[in-house]
């Protein structure tokens, strides 16, 4: 199993196998033999079909070019790939890491086939004022993000030269601090309406980046840009210095309890991705609750026993949800 170097005892092995067999029996009811591998022929109707991603026309046949599942939407036939790098779509919320500060732009690693670009002009300035970016702003770029910062942004689209551009035009985007970045395969994250989550009971923010980068960090209150603007308008100079002071002081630190919750949630996600289960909010919360109810220490979540328990819990969860249908 990928990423798991655990030694299961015999009973644990059996329990894990049983849970996985249960998962198999549930899903076999739902989907038929839609799984294909490279160069498998996909049965399609005579030239009425539109060939989408992961397919290739070869003579009269349509073949798959990646391993995955055949999906059909009306006339469109495409293969949804499983393990692969991230494929950006416009509007996706992603988490990335700055690898370079270049003229007027930052370069971000986002698990795509090339680095993404975040232009200085496509993000809100920290002072919240809308204006043209000057040469001074350009020189101060390192005061906003430096190399190895973790950033949350939105996919803006492909430029005509083929590069991927991002934007961060809202207070909810920007630098992520005091937390943990997890990298999981992107196919385990589903695109949803909501990718930002605030777990009130733990005081933790959770961001599921569509690119498989997941941020678990201390909760920060999003300041409303508009309100701040109105208050500070009379004296922009003053606010600038005030915000600078605020960032340099930062006497508060993350309380131990919050740090433990961050690690607990991070470990829950690690276990999920090690078992290659789909990661979503409900599942993560359930897993954290399970670990708390078992009185497990944070590090004990990465042991073999907990992997087995998570697998069993997931099997049960999917069982009940399929019965409800």
């Amino acid at each position, binding site marked *: *199993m*990928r*990423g798991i170097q655990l030694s299961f005892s015999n009973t644990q092995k059996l329990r894990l196998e049983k849970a*996985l067999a249960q*998962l*198999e029996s549930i*899903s*076999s009811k*739902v*989907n038929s033999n839609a*799984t*294909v*591998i*490279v*160069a498998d022929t996909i049965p399609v109707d005579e030239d009425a079909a539109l060939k989408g991603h*992961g397919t*290739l026309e*070869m003579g009269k046949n349509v*073949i798959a*070019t*990646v*391993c*995955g*599942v055949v999906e059909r939407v009306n006339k469109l036939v495409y293969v949804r*790939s*499983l*393990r*692969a*790098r991230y494929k950006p779509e416009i509007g996706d919320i992603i988490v990335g890491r700055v690898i370079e500060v270049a003229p007027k732009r930052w370069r971000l*690693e986002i698990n795509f*086939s*090339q*680095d993404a670009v975040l232009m200085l002009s496509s993000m809100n300035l920290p002072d919240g004022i809308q204006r043209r970016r000057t040469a001074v702003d350009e020189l101060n770029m390192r005061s906003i993000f430096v190399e190895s910062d973790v950033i949350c942004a939105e996919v803006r689209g492909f430029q005509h030269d*083929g*590069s991927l551009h991002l934007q961060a035009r809202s207070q909810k985007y920007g630098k992520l601090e005091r937390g943990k970045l997890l990298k999981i395969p992107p*196919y*385990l994250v589903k695109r949803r309406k909501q990718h930002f989550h605030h777990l009130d009971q733990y005081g933790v923010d959770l961001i599921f980046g569509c690119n498989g980068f997941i941020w678990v960090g201390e909760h920060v209150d999003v300041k409303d840009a508009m309100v701040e603007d109105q208050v500070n308008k009379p004296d922009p100079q003053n606010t600038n210095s005030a915000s600078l002071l605020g960032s340099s002081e930062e006497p508060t630190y993350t309380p131990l309890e919050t740090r433990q919750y961050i690690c607990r949630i991070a470990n829950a996600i690690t276990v999920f991705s090690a*078992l*290659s*289960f*789909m990661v979503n909010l409900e599942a993560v919360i359930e897993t954290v609750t399970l670990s708390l109810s078992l009185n497990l220490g944070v590090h004990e979540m990465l042991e073999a026993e907990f992997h087995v328990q998570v697998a069993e819990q*997931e099997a049960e969860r*999917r069982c009940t949800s399929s019965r409800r249908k």
Partner: protein
Amino acid sequence: MEYVNPEGLRLDGRRPMEMRQLRAEIGVVSRADGSAAFEMGNTKVIAAVYGPREVQNRSQQMNDQALVRCEYSMANFSTGDRRRKTKGDRRSTEISLVIRQTMEACILTHLMPRSQIDIYVQVLQADGGTRSACINAATLALADAGIPMRDLVTSCSAGYLNSTPLLDLNYLEDSAGGADVTVGILPKMDKVTLLQMDAKLPMDIFENVMQLAVEGCKAVESYIREILLENAKMLEIRRGA
């Protein structure tokens, strides 16, 4: 020396047209985008694929297709006599090139412009046919990395000793000095992407030997497909709806 005894058995007890046991495993390197281990009898290799990712050397970047790179190496402990091998020696450079060209023929590079794909193959245990084993492992690793391909490339070798065509030579047979034909094919398209031979063979015998090697490739293909399908099904089931 007698490589095929009167009963028609080879040194390791196989029939002339018998392959060694195949074994493959997907996902052996946790940090790689795709990885696989492949065994043909005692030959054991491991392959890791990174990418498509940003091109490291900007001057090599191509605007219409991906750059494919390959590095072949042999572990110090892979052969009988333990010796320190330099990284860029003639043999490994040549095999790297061969593997790169073979894989490039099947990857749809035009779908990933301005990026690079790195394939690293390492021989953990060498017992003849490392070239073929490396290509098979690389195919599995590329499929695991979700890189679009025209077809699966599979490879197998065959030789000619004691006036008998032999499939899948081991180290002893390989070093006997007879001909060694390594073939790589695209099974679905029925095309040859790799054909190498040391020593000489008469035309009619060569055709027989090559036919044997192609059959070996098809046997490897059916095994690889089985492994890949099983892996894909497993991933899909676990992911759930």
